[in-house]
């Protein structure tokens, strides 16, 4: 592979992917996104991986897409752009995906955080979709995922003014689930990821799918899907192991079957 724009690290069952384009404030250009998707698809297929954490640098999680790329793009090029399919593949990642955000998560960086299942951020974190100030608009889920977690008024204000919000507002709005001291953001996220990674893989997969369905369907259909996922787990060894370990007061030993 060409120069790594993303650093990969694994500790037990948790993979940490660090966006690493310091000279471009971790702007997510197409090669960067490609490498990210490549690494995620590998992690998806690897039974040794239980959860993935995406993080950036101290001052920047990711400061948007690459404007030089966008500048050169005309309408035909936009129509055949590979990026939308890359984002789609990223969204299909079937294991728990966590974002550890310090500093700026803007534009595509914010959309990347929104595409993760859990977002933990430091006090310095800022989330924003400044696309509008460039005569653009969010193009990777920003207008859809944001409004579903923070509600209409705040999402519209962010998308239409392009102004970023603080970590405290993001917590209050439900965009992130925890705010911690900057120096501990990644550690705390990895801690959560580790806890997740020790759970039964098939149960995690089914639970994640059920959670994602909540955004796609109405309540009764969602409940039906949930029930279906719930029932399929009945046939797994891990479910028997999980309940048995609970009664025997020991740590379960999951096999992913």
């Amino acid at each position: 592979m060409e120069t790594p724009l993303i650093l990969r690290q694994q500790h037990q069952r948790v993979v940490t992917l660090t966006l690493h384009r310091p000279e471009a404030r971790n702007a997510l250009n197409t090669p960067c996104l490609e490498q990210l998707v490549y690494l995620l698809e590998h992690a998806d297929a690897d039974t040794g991986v239980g959860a993935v954490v995406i993080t950036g640098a101290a001052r920047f999680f990711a400061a948007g897409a690459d404007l030089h790329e966008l500048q050169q793009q005309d309408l035909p090029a936009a129509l055949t752009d590979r990026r939308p399919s890359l984002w789609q593949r990223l969204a299909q990642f079937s294991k728990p995906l966590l974002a550890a955000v310090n500093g700026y998560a803007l534009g595509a960086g914010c959309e990347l955080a929104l595409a993760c299942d859990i977002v933990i951020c430091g006090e310095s974190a800022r989330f924003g979709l400044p696309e509008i100030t460039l005569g653009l608009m969010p193009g990777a889920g920003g207008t859809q995922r944001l409004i579903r977690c923070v509600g209409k008024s705040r999402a519209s204000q962010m998308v239409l003014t392009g102004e970023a919000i603080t970590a405290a507002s993001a917590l209050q709005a439900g965009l992130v689930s925890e705010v911690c001291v900057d120096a501990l953001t990644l550690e705390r996220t990895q801690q959560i990821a580790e806890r997740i990674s020790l759970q039964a893989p098939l149960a995690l997969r089914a639970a994640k799918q059920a959670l994602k369905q909540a955004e796609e369907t109405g309540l009764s259909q969602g409940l039906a899907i949930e029930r279906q996922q719930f029932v399929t787990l009945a046939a797994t060894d891990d479910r028997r192991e999980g309940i048995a370990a609970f009664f025997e007061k020991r740590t379960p030993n999951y096999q992913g079957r």
Partner: protein
Amino acid sequence: MDNALILTHLEAGVLTLTLNRPDRLNSFNDEMHRQLSEALTLAERDDKVRCLLITGAGRGFCAGQDLNDRNVSVEQQAPDLGLSVERFYNPLIRRLTTLPKPVVCAVNGVAAGAGAALALACDIVIAADNANFIQSFCRLGLVPDSGGSWFLPRLAGHARAMGMAMLGDKISAQQTLAWGMIWQVVAADELASTSQTLAQHLATQPTYGLGLIKKALYSSANNTLDQQLDLERDLQRLGGRSDDYREGVSAFFAKRPPSFSGK
């Protein structure tokens, strides 16, 4: 530089910033703000700076905003004071309070308006016995800014804060000391040496740990006890990983004076 409105001097880990418009009681204009901002950037980025000391040149500490820049005649449109607060004063106070290094203020004379707020926003305030503090905003129909309305009730209590903010009386250094608003009052001719000695002592201390203390104390203002306990756990975790913690403990057991690196 002849026309420096902020004098900077770095020695023994102490960056001394002197507000230097003595003929105007060191009151702020835009250029002075810009120079102060540059000096703060130095304090933030340079690891050699382990303590910041702020004082004023001449007989005053700081008279707040220079009203010469604020003269408004009837024909003119009202100036947007909020813009000046947003652009200069708020960033200044935010940077001082979040600077992960101790900030000492030597108040050498009158501290009025934003000048008083600037002094009170510093971590340790030492005043000359002839210094005084004036919340002058109320005399002009304005509000204590630069954190004044936040610091006053916290430092002096609600009743005294209201009295100071609404009456705009001159409060002596002794009185502010008695009210617990500042750390120490010394004779005017001892101010420079006392504050230098204190700053130099702080510059030899575990800077990283002092930064964590600052964070803990400022965070307590908007945390519940429960949240603060969690924060203390996190900050202690960080402190426990510092070089200075190791050094402090090993010096303690070896019964020798510690030599802190600030990391």
